[in-house]
């Protein structure tokens, strides 16, 4: 029966359901299932987005469950804060934490989740996640409303993006609503998936302002520190950073760099540091945990972001929230994120970034910048999870009123919208999926599946359990 596991990690539910609970469920607006390959213990922007959004939605009285794939020994059902239930489904991981996709094999488990949790809206995240694509496909087969959030930008030039874009066209052609994190991302997604722009909403990411408060006392007075926090990979423009460091360090002897993050491009920075003998001025901190980020940010005066592509860029908001002056490349959605007086935008070249940084350094020396506290106060209310949850809730409200295409219409839409070849292939796959669902429903009808005990929410069993004393 299942696996034996250490139950210490598993919060167990004593199952007490009475009529009061049933009444509460009826008052709920939506039962949402977030699906993505990317969730904790994996770390990243998508993961924290899903977690924070789910928490805020639970606070608002919705029921939220998360489905992701098993991470190592972490498989089965787990509970997070406020009874947020996470299904770690045993699906085979193929490449960089993304599961293999056959469009069919994940149906039994996902159906089980959708049925027992009485899901009304399936919300999939990230176009890199094949589990998200699968879940959208199955949800439509099962007649559930679907929402998709796209977190990344994609080009149109190379083979891999051509294929991914085709897959996106297919999964999104009958998805009810799509959420993008910036206007640039919306334009990108609309072009990639050939969508009607009116079913695409722009809801930016958010930053928890209480986590990122300024603390000017941490700044050393005798130097100017530039902080860089990003994964050290090509897409984050680390090669540019490798050009900026020697340029500026030669000009300004009191300039220090503080670089947090890990990745293959660390080698470039280490070589630069070696060649110009900057060991005492360029510190590489390695991978940072999320809770340590603030401690690094407050030590600096200037936050530098050298990304070559970025849909939203939470890092610059975090930097500004800690009261730093932000210098960034003008790529993707970055120009939309902060008002002009809080950010200095440069072209993605060493020359332009150096010029931008020098201006900011000069201003910093003449003390003509507003205080960190005032910057924090301006940024604090720009992006909050509460706001994100409210706007996402509106999307759900709209979506549940919409029709999920019945099979015949769905097949027609696939063939008319995705081209004759891919459209026909995926119409066939949709047909297979439907037949497989019929088979599963015949093998195990929905009425034989136990409805999951609902523990989420501020008044859920979750809270009661902690207050109620155990029997022993």
């Amino acid at each position, binding site marked *: 029966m299942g696996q034996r596991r250490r139950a210490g990690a598993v919060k167990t*539910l*004593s199952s007490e359901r009475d009529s009061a609970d049933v009444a509460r469920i009826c008052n709920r607006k939506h039962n949402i299932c977030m699906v993505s390959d990317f969730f904790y213990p994996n770390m990243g922007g998508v993961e924290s987005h899903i977690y924070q959004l789910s928490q805020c939605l639970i606070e608002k009285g919705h029921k939220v469950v998360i489905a992701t794939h098993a991470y190592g020994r972490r*498989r089965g059902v787990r509970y997070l804060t406020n009874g947020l239930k996470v299904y770690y489904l045993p699906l085979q991981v193929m490449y960089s934490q993304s599961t293999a996709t056959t469009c069919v094999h994940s149906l039994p488990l996902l159906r*089980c989740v959708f049925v027992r949790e009485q899901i009304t809206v399936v919300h999939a995240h990230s176009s890199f996640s094949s589990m998200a694509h699968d879940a959208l496909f199955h949800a439509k087969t099962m007649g559930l409303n679907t929402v998709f959030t796209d977190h990344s930008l994609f080009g149109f030039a190379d083979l891999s993006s051509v294929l991914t874009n085709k897959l996106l066209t297919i999964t999104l052609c009958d998805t009810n609503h799509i959420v993008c994190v910036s206007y640039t991302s919306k334009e990108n997604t609309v072009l990639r998936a050939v969508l009607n722009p009116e079913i695409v909403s722009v809801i930016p990411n958010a930053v928890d302002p209480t986590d990122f408060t300024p603390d000017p006392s941490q700044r050393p007075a005798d130097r100017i520190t530039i902080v860089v926090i990003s994964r050290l990979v090509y897409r984050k423009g680390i090669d540019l950073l490798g050009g900026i460091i020697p340029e500026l360090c030669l000009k300004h002897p009191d300039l220090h760099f503080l670089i947090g993050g890990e990745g293959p491009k660390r080698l470039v920075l280490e070589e630069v540091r070696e060649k110009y003998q900057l060991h005492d001025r360029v510190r590489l901190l390695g991978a940072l945990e999320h809770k340590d980020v603030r401690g690094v940010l407050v030590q600096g005066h200037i936050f530098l972001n050298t990304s070559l592509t970025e849909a939203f860029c939470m890092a610059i908001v975090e930097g500004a929230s800690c009261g730093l002056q932000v210098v960034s490349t003008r790529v993707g959605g970055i120009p939309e994120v902060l008002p002009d007086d809080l950010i200095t935008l440069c072209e993605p070249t060493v020359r332009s970034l150096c010029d931008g940084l020098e201006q900011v350094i000069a201003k910093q020396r003449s003390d003509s910048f507003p205080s960190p506290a005032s910057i924090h106060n301006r940024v604090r209310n720009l992006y909050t999870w509460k706001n994100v949850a409210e706007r996402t809730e509106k999307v759900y409200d709209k979506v549940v009123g919409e029709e999920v295409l019945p099979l015949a219409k769905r097949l027609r839409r696939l063939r008319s919208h995705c081209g004759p070849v891919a459209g026909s292939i995926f119409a066939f796959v949709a047909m297979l999926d439907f037949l497989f669902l019929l088979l599963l429903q015949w093998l195990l009808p929905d009425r034989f599946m136990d409805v999951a005990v609902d523990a989420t929410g501020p008044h859920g069993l979750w809270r009661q359990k902690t207050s109620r004393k155990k*029997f022993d």
Partner: protein
Amino acid sequence: MEEEAFTDINGKPITLDCHSHSSFCREFTVSSPKVSIGKVMVYTCSVWLLAYAVFFFTQNTAVLSSAILITLVGMMLHIHFVKVDHESLLVIGSLGIQVSSSYASGREVTTFIEMSKIKDIVINEAIYMHQIIYYLCVLLKEPFEPNEVSSVVPLFQSSKPRLGCLVKVYKSCQEILSTCQ
């Protein structure tokens, strides 16, 4: 002694007997339906028909005899090791929990867990094959750290009752556990 009808996770009917020996001693028995003669006949006939078809083409009598042997041995193994008729859980407050399952052949497997080792009895969720199911399990204490859980013993492993049945057993068990601790 009361008997209630429930279903298992695949929708097959099962019955739950609650036998209250005293206020701190209760026995729960989950019974699955007996092996039906019809089903045995169908399986036997299909194996024999298959064997006869093979025999028809190969003209080898060993096929027929091995088919008979296979059905007989298969049936015996099935009733001796696979088919469980009753699974019972005997909870004796202050003493412990006895878990026993009796196979269709009459074989019984019994294990006893001392009360001092038991931390709690809970209902948990697990992924089982292509389903996600609830199951009742006993949490065992770590020998030297009474607040830690060392392992989990699932109950009613072969009958796999649904949540309604589990809740009933769970509530009665908790009554006994709470009085004796």
